[in-house]
């Protein structure tokens, strides 16, 4: 049995399935047909129903995946065949030529300006914007150049320019250009396969009927998303074909079978109004049914933002004056007309991705009549395909929102993990051993400073040489280097090779997305990651002061000065290791709870299921045959223990280390678990006098009685209490099959914790100065992680004193306690008051 999994498709579902599997001890080969990862989520501007910035949300995940040694991204590649059986598949993968060696390319972009072949429409922007014949496909990983063979002079004619070598070859110091590349087929060995190929807009003649391709300023939803996106061809400014900003925009939802198209239109209309409050926006739709409460709330917000909803059928368009579009439609048989609109956005039906049909044919998996992946006749499990050991998730099954795609990806991961449980940990490599230089807090600081140009993002605006010269003049800064893209780690490791430094200062992009990457490179150079400080020159200087390069450069100097002062005072810290109790508790014998417990037990993990009904037959009585089969399967597994006629008593503890009391007819029993899943239904009565786990675990319910969890589309199963998850009817109303998938998704979240012997946590947490703390308790309520406990202690003379205790495992290092303490008795490691004040004082110094 092979402990590796092939994931096909690197959109949100494929990426999430990959990270879930790695978390559970499996190696992943992530094959993506496009040259970069991220899928549609990286192309759109904002997501419903959270209205989060899509690329900002997905970027850290992409970098995490790109830097994980146990995820092998095979981009610009296609799966040609899969032979073998579950547990032992052989996969043939065709790698397409990019004519650039990705192992050599460091994304310096020196080849771009010298390429004489320009005006290449940008495929990532759906034809909008232009690049050279050598370019990046998108701003996302893997960030490697790519040559478009149909536009490259050298590949077309065997010659480019007057010299012997083409200009790009001459410009590339790392000799990465390779015109000899041909398609190459390789073979992978994996135990299971997950398909996550997503969906595409269906472009049919229907689009042309509404003027698409004929009338200017009629475009599709995804094309409009690229105009809204800050990383799109217009930098997030919506423009018509003539470059003017539209003041009137209408959407037409062409697919009423699901709510996805409608919600997409609502999100885009909201995004338009957010950017231009004077814009008038209409969403034309045909009685779209919205069943989900969170979607209804989002629609209400859109209405409050003056998005107008127009029930309409028989929609037609004609070309108006000045690039406008005349729209006619009927409502209940009455013909109406919208005023001319400046832009008309069509929201087409979503269909399986173009590659899905080819993939299904190549690997012998059935598709349903609509082209989505299908299962064997008689098999009702949603994520099964017609071939055992090959699972499917996300929009490859049917169009769905990102939150649902993420849940299914987790479920698919739990299926693969259950199948390969005997091979867990056999294919992964352990994290590289950290070998640090012997650096102590007392050593005089010696700072290596790196200024990243971030392509044109920073280098295109700041006077980068002046900034480098200034940075070199700062105390303890002994070397300054410039780099086109520091995130590749080449320059930083080159600097640290001398072993002459004990601190690193990086001026670059946002630490929110890239701090982890630079921390890894710093560790690779032998320096503790907490001795690295990152200054955000991009967001804080060039982006917000893009019209004033001189002032932006002056601000950059101030920020680098502050960074240098701070990093000089930073201390080497060690990660926190949290031991894990290798078992889980599932509360509620609902279909979700049973499915969750079954997947955990099948993955060779210990699980306890607590159900208030008196016996399994009582639980089965209200369930479908499918759920009854799951219950029977669970009852046969030795590592699953089912407490029926029981309820939960007191629960205490934290991530990886909970203690729970089970109240059975025979008395109380205590169990130790590493993680907890709430799978009750929303009507379940509040916990009894035996103990209130909802209060003890800091869980909250909304007005509709469903549990409320962590915000964000990527966290549908997570609570804010680390190590506690929710699924099925505990979080929203859903059908039985969706509830089963939800439970299986929760099983994956849990398995990521309890399949480990210990969890590693950042040491950026709060520390109490006991000599100063008098136990006033002001810090307790503001702590969002419930990590602060008030304790009383004795003095020999009989007096009592108080202080607080911080739970290292729970503390998020947010600093709320530090901000509220009137005695300076608590600080966050590496954010000590003296470190912060040193930065503050340095602001007032002249550059």
């Amino acid at each position, binding site marked *: 049995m092979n402990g590796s999994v092939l994931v096909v498709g690197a959109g949100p579902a494929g990426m999430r399935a990959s990270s879930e599997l790695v978390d559970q001890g499996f190696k992943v080969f992530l094959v993506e047909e496009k040259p970069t990862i991220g899928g549609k989520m990286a192309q759109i501007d904002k997501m419903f129903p959270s209205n989060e910035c899509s690329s900002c949300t997905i970027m850290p995940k992409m970098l995490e995946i790109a830097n994980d040694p146990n995820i092998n991204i095979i981009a610009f590649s296609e799966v040609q065949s899969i032979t073998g059986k579950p547990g032992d598949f052989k996969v043939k993968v065709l790698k397409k030529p990019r004519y650039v060696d990705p192992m050599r390319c460091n994304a310096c972009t020196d080849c771009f300006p010298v390429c004489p072949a320009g005006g290449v429409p940008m495929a990532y922007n759906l034809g909008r914007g232009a690049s050279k014949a050598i370019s990046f496909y998108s701003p996302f990983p893997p960030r490697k150049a790519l040559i478009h063979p149909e536009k490259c002079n050298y590949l077309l004619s065997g010659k480019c320019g007057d010299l012997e070598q083409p200009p790009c070859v001459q410009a590339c110091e790392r000799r990465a250009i390779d015109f000899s590349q041909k398609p190459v087929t390789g073979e992978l060995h994996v135990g299971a396969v997950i398909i996550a190929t997503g969906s595409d807009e269906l472009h049919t003649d229907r689009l042309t009927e509404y003027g698409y391709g004929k009338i200017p300023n009629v475009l599709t939803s995804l094309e409009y998303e690229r105009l809204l996106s800050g990383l799109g061809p217009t930098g997030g400014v919506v423009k018509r074909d003539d470059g003017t900003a539209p003041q009137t925009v209408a959407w037409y939802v062409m697919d009423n079978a699901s709510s996805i198209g409608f919600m997409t239109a609502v999100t885009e209309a909201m995004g338009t109004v957010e950017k231009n409050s004077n814009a008038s926006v209409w969403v034309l739709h045909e009685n779209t049914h919205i069943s989900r409460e969170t979607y209804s709330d989002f629609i209400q917000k859109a209405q409050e933002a003056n998005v107008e909803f127009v029930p309409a059928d028989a929609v037609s368009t004609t070309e108006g004056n000045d690039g406008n579009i005349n729209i006619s439609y009927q409502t209940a048989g009455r013909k109406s007309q919208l005023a001319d609109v400046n832009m008309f956005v069509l929201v087409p039906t979503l269909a399986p991705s173009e590659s899905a049909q080819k993939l299904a044919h190549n690997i012998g998996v059935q598709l349903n009549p609509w082209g989505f992946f299908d299962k064997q006749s008689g098999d009702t499990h949603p994520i099964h395909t017609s071939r055992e050991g090959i699972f499917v998730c996300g929009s490859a099954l049917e169009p769905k929102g990102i939150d649902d795609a993420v849940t299914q990806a987790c479920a698919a991961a739990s299926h693969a993990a259950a199948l390969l449980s005997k091979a867990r940990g056999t294919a992964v490599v352990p994290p590289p051993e950290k070998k640090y230089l012997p650096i102590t807090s007392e050593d005089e600081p010696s700072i290596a400073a790196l200024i990243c140009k971030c392509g044109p993002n920073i280098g295109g605006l700041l006077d980068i040489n002046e900034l480098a010269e200034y940075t070199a003049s700062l105390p303890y800064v002994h070397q300054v280097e410039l780099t086109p893209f520091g995130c590749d780690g080449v320059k930083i490791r080159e600097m640290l090779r001398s072993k002459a430094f004990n601190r690193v200062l990086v001026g670059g992009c946002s630490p929110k997305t890239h701090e982890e990457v630079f921390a890894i490179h710093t560790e690779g150079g032998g320096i503790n990651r907490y001795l690295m400080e990152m200054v955000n020159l991009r967001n804080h200087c060039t982006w917000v002061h893009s019209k004033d390069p001189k002032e932006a450069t002056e601000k950059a100097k101030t920020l680098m000065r502050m960074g240098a002062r701070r990093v000089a005072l930073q201390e080497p810290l060690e990660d926190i290791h949290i031991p894990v109790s290798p078992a889980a508790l599932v509360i509620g014998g609902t279909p979700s709870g049973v499915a969750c417990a079954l997947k955990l037990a099948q993955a060779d993990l210990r699980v306890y299921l607590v159900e208030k009904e008196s016996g399994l037959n009582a639980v089965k009585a209200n369930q479908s045959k499918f759920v009854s089969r799951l219950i029977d399967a669970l009852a046969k597994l030795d590592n699953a223990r089912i407490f029926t006629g029981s309820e939960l008593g007191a629960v205490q503890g934290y991530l990886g280390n909970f203690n729970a009391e089970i109240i059975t007819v025979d008395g109380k029993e205590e169990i130790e678990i590493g993680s907890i899943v709430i799978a009750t239904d929303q009507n379940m009565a509040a916990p009894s006098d035996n103990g209130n786990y909802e209060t003890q675990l800091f869980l909250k319910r909304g007005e509709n009685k469903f549990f409320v969890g962590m915000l964000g589309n990527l966290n549908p199963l997570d609570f804010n209490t680390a190590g506690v998850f929710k699924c099925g009817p505990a979080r929203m109303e859903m059908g039985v099959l969706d509830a089963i998938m939800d439970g299986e998704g929760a099983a994956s979240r849990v398995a990521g914790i309890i399949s480990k012997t210990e969890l590693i946590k950042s040491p950026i947490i709060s520390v109490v100065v006991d000599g100063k703390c008098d136990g*006033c308790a002001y810090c307790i309520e503001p702590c969002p992680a419930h990590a602060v406990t*008030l304790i009383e202690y*004795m003095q020999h003379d009989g007096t009592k004193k108080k202080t607080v205790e911080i739970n290292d495992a729970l503390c998020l290092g947010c600093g709320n306690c530090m901000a509220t303490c009137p005695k300076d008795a608590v600080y966050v490691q590496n954010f000590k008051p003296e470190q912060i004040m040193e930065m503050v004082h340095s602001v007032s110094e002249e550059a």
Partner: protein
Amino acid sequence: MPLLTAKIDGKKFMWDNFMYSSEAEAKEKIAAYEKDGFEAACLTEAEGYLVYTRKVITEITLE
């Protein structure tokens, strides 16, 4: 000067600010503290015996 704080079984205990000369004396004090609802533990130092205590307060009153 002994440490104010000791981590015992993963929990934070605080010193009672006295060095006991014998184990029996320390144990007697521990029994008294435990009677008062405190968790208590004894640590041995070269100079004598140290007693550490703690009690979690759940009813919090801000002054």
